[in-house]
C-alpha cells in the first residue's frame, strides 16, 4: 500500500523550509495581508452568531459520533448512493484512487477533465497521474488555476494562491492564456479566467470534484463553493466523479444545518458562500448521466485507531486555523512541505503517513492555541500536536542532543536537592558567557536562541536560597 500526501514524503524538514520561506519578503507580505483580511472577516461574522459556541460543540459531537461508527455510515452511504444511481468505488490508497479515476475517464475515451477544487486530489497527486495517462486536467477554481498555470504548489487550503499577488498573476495569465493585453486589477484577471474557462465548461465531458460533505442517510454529496465553477463542473458534463475522503461522511441531511453555518463563516468570513450544491445519484434531465464516488482511505482508517488524535479527522478543511496561526503567518504554506499546511497540516500530514514522514511538522507550532479557538469543529490541535511529538520521541526520532538535554533535566528536576545542585552548576557554567547580566551567545544547540535573542543570566541567589536565608534571618 502506498499512502501519499502530495510530495510530503520528499519535502525538507520544516525548520529548513521555513528558513527559506522567511527570506521571501513578497510572499510574506502577501500571506500577511490575506490572512489579516480573512481573519477580520471571520471574527466579525462569527461574533454576530450568539450560538456560535453551541454550533461548534454540536459539530464536534456530530463528527466524533460519525467517526465512532464510520464503518456503518460508509455502508449506509454506499447503499443510498447506489440506490439513487450512483456508483461507489473504494480506494485503499492514492494509486488505487488514481487508477479508478483514470479507468472511468478511459472507459469514455475522453482526454480532458474539468476539476473543482479538491485538496484530496492534490493529496493523491491525481493530476500527474492523469497526465501520465494522456489525460489533461483543467483546474477551474481561480486559485487552483493560478497554481496549475504557474506549475506551483498550493499554499493554503481554501485560497491556495494567496502567496501570489495580482502583478504576479497578471504576468502568469498573459503568458499562459496567450493574451495580448490584460488589465492589472483583480476584476480584469477574474474576467480573463471566466473567458478562458467558459469554453471548457461547455465542451469537456467529464468533471471531477471532491465533497465537503457526504450524507449517509441519503447518499448525497454536498459541494460548497463561491465562483460557480463547482456548479459548472458538477452540472454540465456527462460524467461526474467525486473523490471523497472517508472522513467526509455526516449522518443525516439535517446535520447540514450545523455545518452550513460554521463552514462559510470560518472559511471565507461570509454568512453564506454564494453556492452550495447537494445532489443524490443521477437525476433525469438534470446534470450528468453518470455519477461515481471514489471513497478514499489513504491512511485515514489508521488515524482512527488513536482515540486522542482521531479528532484530526473531524476537519472540514475551512482553514480558519491557518488564518489565525502566527507560524503560518510568518512562513506561508509551502514551508510545511505538504498540500495540507498550517496547524491542521501539521497534524494531518504526518498521521496520514503513519508518522513515517514529516516528523518535524508536529514541532512547527508554539502551541499558542489560536487554532483550537478558531476551529469550528473544536479539534484540539495543540493537544494532538503534543501527542504526535510523543510519538516522534517514542519512535526514537528526536535529535540526540534534545534527548540528552531532556533526560538530564528530568534527572535534575527529580528532587529539590538535585535541582539546587543544578542551579549551582548553571551559575558556574554560565560565568564565562555573562556580560552585564546577560548572555549574548549560548553554546551548542542553545545557540539557535542567541542568534537573535539575549539570554538572562541566572542571578547569584535562587529563590529557594533566598527563602532559606530569609527564614534564618526571621528566626534569629
Amino acid at each position, binding site marked *: 500500500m502506498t499512502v501519499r500526501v502530495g510530495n510530503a514524503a520528499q519535502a525538507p524538514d520544516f*525548520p529548513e523550509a*521555513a*528558513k527559506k520561506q*522567511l527570506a521571501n519578503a513578497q510572499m510574506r507580505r502577501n500571506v500577511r495581508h490575506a490572512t489579516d483580511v480573512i481573519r477580520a472577516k471571520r471574527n466579525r461574522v462569527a461574533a454576530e452568531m450568539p450560538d456560535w459556541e453551541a454550533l461548534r460543540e454540536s459539530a464536534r459531537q456530530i463528527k466524533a459520533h460519525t467517526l465512532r461508527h464510520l464503518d456503518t455510515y460508509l455502508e449506509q452511504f454506499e447503499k443510498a448512493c447506489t440506490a439513487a444511481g450512483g456508483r461507489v468505488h473504494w480506494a485503499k490508497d492514492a494509486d488505487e484512487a488514481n487508477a479508478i479515476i483514470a479507468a472511468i475517464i478511459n472507459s469514455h475515451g475522453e482526454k480532458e477533465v474539468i476539476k473543482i477544487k479538491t485538496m484530496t486530489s492534490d493529496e493523491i497527486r491525481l493530476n500527474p497521474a492523469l497526465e501520465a495517462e494522456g489525460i489533461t486536467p483543467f483546474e477551474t477554481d481561480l486559485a487552483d488555476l493560478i497554481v496549475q498555470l504557474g506549475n506551483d504548489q498550493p499554499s493554503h487550503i481554501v485560497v491556495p494562491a494567496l502567496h501570489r499577488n495580482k502583478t504576479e498573476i497578471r504576468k502568469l495569465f498573459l503568458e499562459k492564456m496567450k493574451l495580448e493585453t490584460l488589465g492589472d486589477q483583480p476584476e480584469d484577471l477574474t474576467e480573463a479566467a471566466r473567458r478562458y474557462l467558459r469554453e471548457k465548461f461547455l465542451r469537456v465531458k467529464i468533471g471531477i470534484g471532491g465533497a465537503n460533505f457526504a450524507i449517509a442517510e441519503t447518499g448525497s454529496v454536498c459541494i460548497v463553493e463561491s465562483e460557480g465553477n463547482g456548479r459548472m463542473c458538477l452540472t454540465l458534463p456527462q460524467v461526474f466523479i467525486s473523490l471523497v475522503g472517508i472522513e467526509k461522511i455526516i449522518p443525516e441531511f439535517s446535520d447540514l444545518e450545523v455545518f452550513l453555518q460554521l463552514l462559510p463563516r470560518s472559511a471565507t468570513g461570509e454568512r453564506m458562500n454564494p453556492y452550495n450544491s447537494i445532489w443524490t445519484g443521477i437525476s433525469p434531465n438534470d446534470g450528468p448521466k453518470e455519477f461515481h464516488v471514489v471513497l478514499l482511505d489513504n491512511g485515514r482508517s489508521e488515524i482512527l485507531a488513536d482515540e486522542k488524535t482521531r479528532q484530526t479527522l473531524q476537519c472540514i478543511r475551512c482553514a480558519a486555523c491557518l488564518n489565525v496561526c*502566527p*507560524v503560518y503567518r*510568518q*512562513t506561508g504554506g509551502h514551508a510545511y512541505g505538504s498540500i495540507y499546511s498550517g496547524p491542521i497540516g501539521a497534524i494531518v500530514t504526518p498521521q496520514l503517513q503513519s508518522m513515517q514522514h514529516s516528523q518535524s511538522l508536529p*514541532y*512547527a*507550532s*508554539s*502551541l*499558542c*492555541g*489560536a487554532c*483550537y*479557538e478558531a476551529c469550528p469543529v473544536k479539534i484540539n490541535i495543540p*493537544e494532538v500536536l*503534543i501527542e*504526535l*511529538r*510523543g*510519538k*516522534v*520521541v*517514542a519512535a526514537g526520532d528526536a535529535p540526540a542532543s*534534545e534527548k540528552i538535554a*531532556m*533526560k538530564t*533535566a*528530568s534527572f535534575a*528536576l*527529580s*528532587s*529539590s536537592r538535585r*535541582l539546587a545542585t543544578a*542551579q549551582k552548576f*548553571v551559575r558556574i557554567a554560565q560565568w564565562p558567557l555573562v556580560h552585564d547580566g*546577560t548572555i*549574548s551567545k549560548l553554546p551548542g544547540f*542553545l545557540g*539557535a*536562541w542567541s*542568534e*537573535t*535573542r*539575549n*539570554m*538572562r543570566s*541566572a*542571578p547569584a*541567589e*535562587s*529563590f*529557594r*536560597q*533566598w*527563602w*532559606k536565608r530569609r527564614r534564618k534571618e526571621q528566626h534569629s
Partner: protein
Amino acid sequence: MLISLFITCYNDTLFPETGKAVVAVLERLGHTVEFREAQTCCGQMHYNTGYQQEAFPLMRHFLEVFRGAEVICIPSASCVAMIREHFPVMAADSTDPKLIHEVNDLLPRVFEFTELLVDKLGVTDVGAFFPHPVTFHTSCHSLRSLHVGDKPMQLLKNIRGLKLTELPDSDQCCGFGGTFAIKNAPVSSAMLSDKIGSILKTNAQVCAAGDNSCLMHIDGGLTRQKAPVKCMHIAEILAATEPVSNPGSDQ
C-alpha cells in the same frame, strides 16, 4: 490565609525577584506564605516537547509535595495550564484511580497569581505605586487556557501612578513556545520581531506579563536591540510601593 507558593523551576533559577514580589504582595495583604522546599517542576517542558514519560514522575512529585496545601499560588500561567489541562490527561492515561482522584482533588486548589488575587482573594487594589508607562503582554496560556480575561488589567489599573497602554495585536503569540524557540528559531524570531514592533508602538517603559517565559523571550529580543523597554513580571509591579519619605536619603 495560608498560601503555598509553587515558584516554578525557571522562576526559581532565573527570576527569583518574581517569587519575592509574590511573597511581598501576599504578605502585605495579610496572608501567610509557605514554600515547600521539596518542590521542583510541573513537567511542562518535557510534556510539551513529547517526553510525556519524563513528565510523569514530575507530576507525581508535584502531587506529593502539595498534598494538603489549601491554596497553591503559581506566578506562571503556562505552568497552571500544564497542571489544569495535562495532569488530568496523564492521570487518566495511567488508569490509576488513586492518581486520578489526587489530580481531581488538586485542581480546585491551584491558582495563577492574578486569579488568586482577583477571584479567590477578591482584591483588585493591592496598594501598589508604580509611576511608569506600562503595557501588558497577555500570554497565550493565560488568554486561551486560563481565560484570565481582564484580571491583570484590573490589577494594573488600580496601581497609583501607572499609565497603562494597550498592546496592539495582544492576542498574538510572542513566539516563545518553549523548545519551539530553539527548534524553530528563525520562525520564533520572526514572531518575536512582530511582538517587539507592537511593544515599541506603545512607548511604554515597561512590558509586563504573568509569564516570565514569554518575558525572557521578549526581553532577549529587546536587549539585543538595545530597546529602552524593561520586562517585568506583573507581581513585581504589584509589589512596588511608594518610597517611604526620607528627605535625607537622597544626599
